């Protein structure tokens, strides 16, 4: 996957400047930056959800996204929330639900689950798509510390097992190290990518 971005603007406001981002299967990259800098915008461009930018997006890799919110189908049960969007078979969906600690909840509707459980379901759904590169948009935000830590370990384990690459965007400088991801920062106006300074927390 390679993105050569010239620039990205919303109406007359330039949000992202020129930047290059290249990630391959097995590689992990974390894009750090404060809220509002353009992290979600960048991830949406990479995911192919926003095509109104100048630059070039190339690569044949299979991508899967874990959004900032769980973004589940409220009217479909947990298992169907994996099989319907990804088209994977029930066996794989069950296995993944077990791996993220949701065994036995296959028949529940999303609103019967806690936020932490919904997020893990979204994680299982992304891996069910058998991605070459996983895209994650602040997937650990607004979870309590303990739940967030468990989900980070879970993500790392699933990445190890599947061999998928990772592009994570986050404002938390502690997360890249725990996922073994190479940190780069997004900063400036319009925002560009910089190699991150070693952060004190890492």
């Amino acid at each position, binding site marked *: 996957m390679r993105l050569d971005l010239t620039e990205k603007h919303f109406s007359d406001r330039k949000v992202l400047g020129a930047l290059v981002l290249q990630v391959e299967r097995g590689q992990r990259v974390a894009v750090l930056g404060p809220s509002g800098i353009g992290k979600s915008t960048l991830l*949406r461009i990479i*995911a*192919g*959800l926003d095509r109104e930018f100048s630059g070039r997006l190339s690569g044949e890799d299979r*991508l*899967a*996204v874990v*959004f900032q*919110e769980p*973004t589940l*189908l*409220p*009217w*479909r049960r947990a298992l*169907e929330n994996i099989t*319907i*969007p*990804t088209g994977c078979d029930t066996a794989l969906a069950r296995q993944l639900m077990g791996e993220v600690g949701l065994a036995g909840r296959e028949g*529940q*509707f999303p*609103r*019967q689950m806690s936020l932490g459980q919904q997020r893990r379901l979204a994680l299982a*759904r992304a891996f069910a*798509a058998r991605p070459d590169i996983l895209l994650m948009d602040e997937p650990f935000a607004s979870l309590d510390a303990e739940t967030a830590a468990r989900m980070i370990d879970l993500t790392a384990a699933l990445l190890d097992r599947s061999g998928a690459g990772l592009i994570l965007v986050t404002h938390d400088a502690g997360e890249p190290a725990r996922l073994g991801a190479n940190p780069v920062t997004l900063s400036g106006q319009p925002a560009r990518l910089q190699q991150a300074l070693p952060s004190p927390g890492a």
Partner: protein
Amino acid sequence: MSKAQRHIWQSPGLLPGLFSVLAMLVLWAVASQLTERPQVLPAPWVVAARIWSLAASGELWFHAGMTLFRVLASFVIAMAVGIALGLWMGRFRTADHWLNPALVIALNIPALVTIVLAYIWIGLNEVAAITAVALNKIPVVTVMLREGSRALRPDLDDMASAFRMGRLERLRHVVLPQLAPYIAGAARAGISLIWKIVLVVEFLGRSNGVGFKIHLLFSSFDVAGVLAWALAFVAVMLLIDLMILRPWEARANRWRRDEA
């Protein structure tokens, strides 16, 4: 299913509802006894006897069946076209800009005008009758579904695109469940409006159906007959609402409720 039924039969409004119907019957009975001219306001039991004899002779089932067929045919057409148009106008602003004036005009054309023009342009036949009724209903369904389509969640659209869901899958699992409350609303509002228009269509240009019978009875000033046909058909429509539309609505909304 059992849940939905319990919902109806155990509702706190049931008893007052029954009493209010009973009170109306008593009022009707008293009024019918006080009037000088019983042919203008026949007693409830006279009307009940008429319904009974119509049902026994089979006449009721034939004409109510014809009316019901017209109701269902125009209902299905109006819902299908209205949902498609509403979805299109709600999702694409250009479509909305081009079609909105036509929609506003269509909403304001009296049902009677559509019916008369359909009979003149298409002919005094079944196609004209059903087209006229559907045309009356399509704009209303379109408006309701356009509202629903504007409220579709963009985050779920993104999710569907990110996972490359196919068009049909998307419609079935992402879009239609969100539109279900609007479709159910349009269906229930629609069916009651449609059967009233169907009676007018039959009154003006068909040789069977409840509206046709009412036309005949109106010519001979037979109020008991008019009331008998009207009440019998109201009962049929209420039954459809209770037995089909409400349970379907409850089922479509199951995911909203917490299950134990």
